[in-house]
């Protein structure tokens, strides 16, 4: 059985966007995640107005995936993501809107983001990816599951590539690690390599 490979890695952590080990954006000024995400979007000169309607999880997903997906002509790319907090960051906001019976203002624009897989829908829409999607939740990055699920999709579901990721956000704590698995490349797709990327 031929090996699969990891060809691109994008990380967002400590107020940096790092593409293939190179810092492409750094913002030590931002006081909170919200302004960091907006500054990152502006810095990369993206033109996608829907970004501003997204919640933090989807914004973070967009900023981590866009550097990889914007160069892909192939649309047969599956999406497999995982995190710890699910959509808790937005759940808290919806809860606040219903906590006080005197000031009750649940909003569909917030509520729709109270599901973690919405960020996969956003990526699918942006890049017209009518492909396999799956969102897992896990206390820690589960390299065994991510490895096996990506391997399964390419080997048994006629998928060319799989964009995998850990995208976690809760209040001002966040981390994104996104990588592309495909049939050609230099770095072999293995659990060991995934553990290394994740450090």
């Amino acid at each position, binding site marked *: 059985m031929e090996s699969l490979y990891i060809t691109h890695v994008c990380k967002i952590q400590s107020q940096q966007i790092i593409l293939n080990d190179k810092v492409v954006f750094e913002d030590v000024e931002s006081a909170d995640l919200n302004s960091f995400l907006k500054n990152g979007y502006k810095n990369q000169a993206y033109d996608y107005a829907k970004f501003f309607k997204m919640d933090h999880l989807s914004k973070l997903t967009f900023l981590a995936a866009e550097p990889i997906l914007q160069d892909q002509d192939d649309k047969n790319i599956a*999406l497999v993501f995982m995190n*710890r*907090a*699910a959509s*808790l960051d937005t*759940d*808290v906001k*919806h*809860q606040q809107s*219903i*906590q006080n*019976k005197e000031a*009750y203002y*649940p*909003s*569909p624009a917030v*509520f*729709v983001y*109270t*599901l*973690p*897989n*919405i960020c*996969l*829908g*956003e990526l*699918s*829409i942006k*890049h*017209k*990816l*009518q*492909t*396999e*999607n*799956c*969102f*897992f*939740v*896990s*206390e820690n990055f*589960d390299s*065994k*599951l991510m490895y*096996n*699920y990506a*391997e*399964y999709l390419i080997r*048994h*579901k006629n998928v060319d590539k799989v964009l995998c990721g850990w995208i976690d956000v*809760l209040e001002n704590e966040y981390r994104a690690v996104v990588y592309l698995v495909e049939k050609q490349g230099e770095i072999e797709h293995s659990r060991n390599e995934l553990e290394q990327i994740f450090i």
Partner: protein
Amino acid sequence: MKKVYIHQYNYLSPLGNNAQTNWEALVNYQSGITLQPKLGNLDGYYASVIADKTIDNEIETFDTNKLPRVLKMAIAALQPLIEKQRITPNSTLILSTTKGDIKALEQDNLEEASIPFLAEQIASHFGFRKRPIIVSNACVSGVLALAVAKRMIQMDMMNEVYIVAVDEVTEFVVSGFNSFQAMSFEPCKPYDVNRKGVNLGEAAAAVYVSANEPTKNSIEIVGDGSINDANHISGPSRTGEGLYQSIQSALNEADITSNQIDYVSSHGTATLYNDEMEAIAFDRLALNQTPVSSLKGYFGHTLGTSGLLETIVTCQMMQNKKAIANLGLEHLGVTKPIHVLQKHIDLDINYALKTASGFGGCNTALILKKV
């Protein structure tokens, strides 16, 4: 590839405390949907809600007073399966849920509202040694969890899998669906011309899945697919593209054509757009003559549980040679002719198709085969 089977199942709903009592209620056209007391700022809504004493009766053997209700539901559904066959160090727990114990946010308790925390409590209650897997993919979660189990068993990553699916009717979810104006203020009517939207529901469901030798009651999972519409985050594709492709992917894997499907257990939430989208997708696949029913008229929309619950009921239909009707339909109100069952029928189901669709543009299809 290994053949993977659903060997055992159990579920808990307002209609019954186990699979058999639920089945008897379904055969008698009983619905769990009732008018609910005021919740938050919402009055006069319908939902399918389990009585607290039903849950407590199932797990009265230990002190459960302090446990969150949603955890008790999960334990009550899974317990009978674990009593039948012991957990081994190779057993994997998969949890399917959209919101877990979201009620904990009312007390600002972020730890208890965390889904991994809930999964860990279920795992440690039963003594699972492996780390639990959690699928949280909106309303397809329950069907997708079955696909994940099958796929990972075929990759030799898992061996024997217990899937438990659970979600509660909470003010959090009720207020959110209502803000979307997606709720019906009468019992829901999937596929009907006068359908007005969703009734929410709650249930807990559990299955035991493995590649072990099947018995006469085992049901094989022969194909699956889970394809995104790439169209809209809160509404389905008008052409049913993602659902169409999901079913096609499942048919290809099962190596059958759509005319071999004997019965379709659809999603059928009773929203205007969902039911219409499904009719279009089924029509594109030439499934017009195939008997189809949504079970939302009995259980409401049980979110992360629905896909697993409805797959289990489909297994019961296959075993009992009876297709359960689509409760709530009077006059078909979709633009494509599909064969929605208004009465139960005796039916020998060799192949069944289960589908689900949800927010984020997700769709999942699963094909079941009688052994």
